[in-house]
C-alpha cells in the first residue's frame, strides 16, 4: 500500500472524528491530539478505523509512537501488509 | 309667596324689542322643525328632543341674562343654545357629528357645550345639571363675582333627590342661582299629577326658604320681565330664585315617542296659546315674510356648513380624556 494511500486512510479517520478539521493543514510534526482536540475516546475510534480499513492492530503500548502525522504514517506503513 | 301667575306682560315694551324676541322664537321653531326633517332623513341620529312650543321660556329668560352669566341646560337644549348665542352652524354640525360641531361631534343634540358663552352644556341625566349650577354659583360667591348661574330643568327633575339637595344647599348658602323650571306638565310620559304630590311647583320650591315665582310659560314678555326681576335679585346677592314657567311642548318627548299619554285635544288646546303667533299678532309692523326668509337662509347655511364639515380623526378618540397640559 503506497504511503499516500496510508496518508489518505489517516485523513479519512481524522475527518470522521473531527469533521470540521482539514487534515491537510496539519504540520507533519504537530501533536495530533492537541492540534485536533482529540480525547482518548476519539483516539480509540481512530485506531478502530485503522484496524478496519488497514487491518492493523495497535496495542496500547504503542500509543506513544502515534503522536504526530509522520510518526503515524511510518508506523502504519511498516505494519500494513 | 304667591301661587298663580301674577306678572302682567308689560304692554309698553317697544315694538323693536318685541320683534327681536319674536324673531328669536321663530328662529328656534324653524330650526327645530328642520331638525325633525333631518332626523327622518337620517342626517341626525341618536336622541333628539325638540323645543317646539316652549320657545318663550328660553328666549324670555336668556334675554334677561348678561354675557358673563352662566347657563346650565338639559338635553332639550337647542332653543337655549340658540338664544344664548351659540351659532346655528356649530349646533347643526354637532348634530351631524362633525368636528366643527360645538362639542367636536362628541356630544350630539343632548350635549352642546360653548365656553365663549359660558354654556355649560346639556345634561342627559335628569336633574344632573342642578349640582353643577350650584357649584358654579358657589365659585362666583366665593370669588365675589356678581354673576348669575341660570339652571334650566323640567318638571321631571323636581322628583329627583338632587333637586331637593340642591334647592336646600343653594338656599342654605344663599348662592346666586336662577332655577328655571320649564313645567311642561309631562315628565316624558308621566303627567305631573301622577308624579308630584304638590303640583304647584313654585309653592313646593318656596318651602326651601327661597324666592319662588310662577309665570305663564307661553308669554315671552311676561317671562322676560319675571326673569329680569329674578336675575336682579340673584345678582344682588339675595340668594337663589326659583322661576316656574308653565309651558307646553307641542311635539313628542323625543323622536320615538308615540304620545299615548296625552290627548290630541289637549295639544290642540295648548296650541291655541302658541307664543309665536300670539306675539306676532300684537306686532303689526313685523315683516314676518322677510323674517322667515332670513331664518330659512340661516338654517340652510347651517346645514351646508354641517354637510361640508369634517369627521374628527379616529386617532383623536382619546384626546381630552385627560388634559393635554398637566398644570391647570
Amino acid at each position, binding site marked *: 500500500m503506497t504511503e499516500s494511500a496510508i496518508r489518505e486512510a489517516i485523513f479519512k479517520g481524522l475527518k470522521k472524528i473531527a469533521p470540521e478539521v482539514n487534515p491537510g493543514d496539519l504540520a507533519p510534526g504537530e501533536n495530533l491530539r492537541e492540534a485536533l482536540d482529540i480525547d482518548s475516546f476519539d483516539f480509540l475510534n481512530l485506531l478502530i478505523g485503522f484496524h478496519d480499513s488497514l487491518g492493523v492492530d495497535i496495542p496500547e503500548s504503542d500509543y506513544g509512537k502515534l503522536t504526530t502525522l509522520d510518526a503515524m504514517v511510518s508506523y502504519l506503513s511498516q505494519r500494513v501488509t | 309667596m304667591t301661587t298663580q301667575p301674577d306678572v302682567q306682560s308689560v304692554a309698553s315694551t317697544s315694538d323693536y324689542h318685541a320683534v327681536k324676541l319674536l324673531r328669536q322664537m321663530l328662529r328656534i321653531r324653524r330650526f327645530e322643525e328642520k331638525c325633525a326633517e333631518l332626523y327622518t332623513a337620517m342626517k341626525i341620529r341618536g336622541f333628539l328632543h325638540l323645543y317646539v312650543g316652549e320657545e318663550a321660556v328660553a328666549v324670555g329668560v336668556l334675554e334677561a341674562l348678561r354675557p358673563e352669566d352662566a347657563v346650565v341646560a338639559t338635553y332639550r337644549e337647542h332653543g337655549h343654545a340658540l338664544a344664548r348665542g351659540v351659532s346655528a352652524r356649530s349646533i347643526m354640525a354637532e348634530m351631524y357629528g362633525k368636528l366643527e360641531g360645538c362639542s367636536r361631534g362628541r356630544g350630539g343634540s343632548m350635549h352642546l357645550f360653548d365656553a365663549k358663552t359660558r354654556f355649560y352644556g346639556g345634561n342627559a341625566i335628569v336633574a344632573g345639571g342642578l349640582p353643577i349650577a350650584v357649584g358654579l354659583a358657589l365659585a362666583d360667591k366665593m370669588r365675589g363675582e356678581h354673576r348669575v348661574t341660570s339652571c334650566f330643568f323640567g318638571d321631571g327633575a323636581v322628583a329627583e333627590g338632587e333637586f331637593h339637595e340642591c334647592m336646600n344647599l343653594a338656599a342654605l348658602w344663599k348662592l346666586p342661582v336662577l332655577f328655571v323650571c320649564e313645567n311642561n306638565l309631562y315628565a316624558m310620559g308621566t303627567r305631573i299629577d301622577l308624579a308630584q304630590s304638590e303640583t304647584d311647583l313654585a309653592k313646593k320650591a318656596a318651602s326651601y326658604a327661597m324666592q319662588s315665582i310662577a309665570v305663564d310659560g307661553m308669554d315671552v314678555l311676561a317671562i322676560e320681565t319675571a326673569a329680569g326681576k329674578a336675575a336682579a335679585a340673584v345678582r344682588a346677592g339675595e340668594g337663589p330664585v326659583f322661576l316656574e314657567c308653565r309651558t307646553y311642548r307641542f311635539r313628542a318627548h323625543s323622536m320615538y315617542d308615540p304620545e299615548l299619554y296625552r290627548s290630541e285635544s289637549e295639544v290642540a288646546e295648548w296650541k291655541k296659546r302658541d307664543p309665536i303667533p300670539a306675539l306676532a299678532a300684537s306686532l303689526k309692523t313685523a315683516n314676518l315674510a322677510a323674517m322667515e326668509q332670513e331664518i330659512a337662509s340661516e338654517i340652510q347655511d347651517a346645514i351646508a356648513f354641517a354637510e361640508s364639515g369634517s369627521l374628527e380623526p379616529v386617532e383623536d378618540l382619546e384626546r381630552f380624556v385627560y388634559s393635554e397640559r398637566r398644570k*391647570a
Partner: protein
Amino acid sequence: MSTITYRDAMREAIRDALHRDERVFLMGEDVGRYGGCFAVSKGLLDEFGPERIRDTPMSESAFVGAGIGAALGGMRPIVEIMTVNFSLLALDQIMNNAATFLHMSGGQFNVPLVIRMATGGGRQVAAQHSHSLEGWYAHIPGIRILAPATHEDARGMLWTALEDPDPVLIFEHSGLYNKKGELPPDAGPVDIDRARIHRKGRDITLIAYGAGLWQALDAAETLAHNSIECEVIDLRTLRPLDDATFFESIARTHRAVVIDEGWRSGSLSAEICARIQEKAFYELDAPVQRVCSAEAPAPYAKHLEEASLPSAQKIVAAVEGIIHPNG
C-alpha cells in the same frame, strides 16, 4: 425626621394647599365644626374660617356636583366624601359629569377637582361601611385614582392632584389613619404618575396598593426567612396604571401575586393580571395569583371579617404555592 400619623400627614397636606392657593377650599360632611369624621380636618375651621372649610348637608350628589361646578367656575375644591360607601350617592355626578365634561365638551371645560374619601374594611363596621371600590372608579376614563399608602404620599399627593387640570380621586384606607411613620420636615409634593418598588427581590413580584402594601411588606419579611426574596411594588396610582414598572419587575422575577382588597371578580387585580398576560406572557414561569377579599358582603363578626380580608399570611401562602407548587 418627625414621627406623625398618616392622618396628620393628610391634614398637613390640606393646610399647606389652603395656604398656597386661595382658590383651594375644603367641602364635605362634618369637615368643619366636627373636625372631620376621621379627624383629618380638625382645627382647620378655626384657622381658615367657614368660607373655606365648608360643612355640607348630607347631600352627596349636590355637594360633589357643586364641587364639580365650582371647579368649572375657577375654584380648586377639595371635596371630602366621608367614605367610599357614601360615594355611591354621588357616583352619577362623578362618572357622568366630572369624568366626562372635558371629553364631551370637545376639550373646552376642565374640571380641576380633588375628591378625597376613606375606603376599605377591617374595623368591624359591617357590609355597608366596609367597601373597597377604588377598583370601580379606576374603571372610569377621565379621572385619576390615587391610593396613598405611605406617609410621604399622604403628605405629598394632594398638592400635585390639586394642580392637575383633571378630576383626581384620592382613596385613603381607613385602617391607615392611626399608622405612625417618619416624615422629613420639608416633605412636600410628590409625583402621582409612577408606581414605586418598595423592596427589591429576585424571586417574585408582589403588586399592592393602600393598606395592601403593608401586608405585602410583612409577607416579604416572613418569606425572606426561608430565602424567598419578594419584590414589593406600591402602585400609588390606580388610574392610569403604571404597568411598565411591574412588567419590568416580572421580567426579572417571572412570578407575581397581586394584592387587592376589592372583590376578586372584575377587580383592579383582574385588570392587572390581564395586562400581565397580554404584555409579559413570555416572562411568566407560573400563573399570576391574586389575594383579594372574599366575594361576600363584609361580615361584622371579627373572625369572619378577618377570614374575608387579604392578609400577610394569605400572601405568604400564595407565594409559597407558586414557588413550591408541588408542596
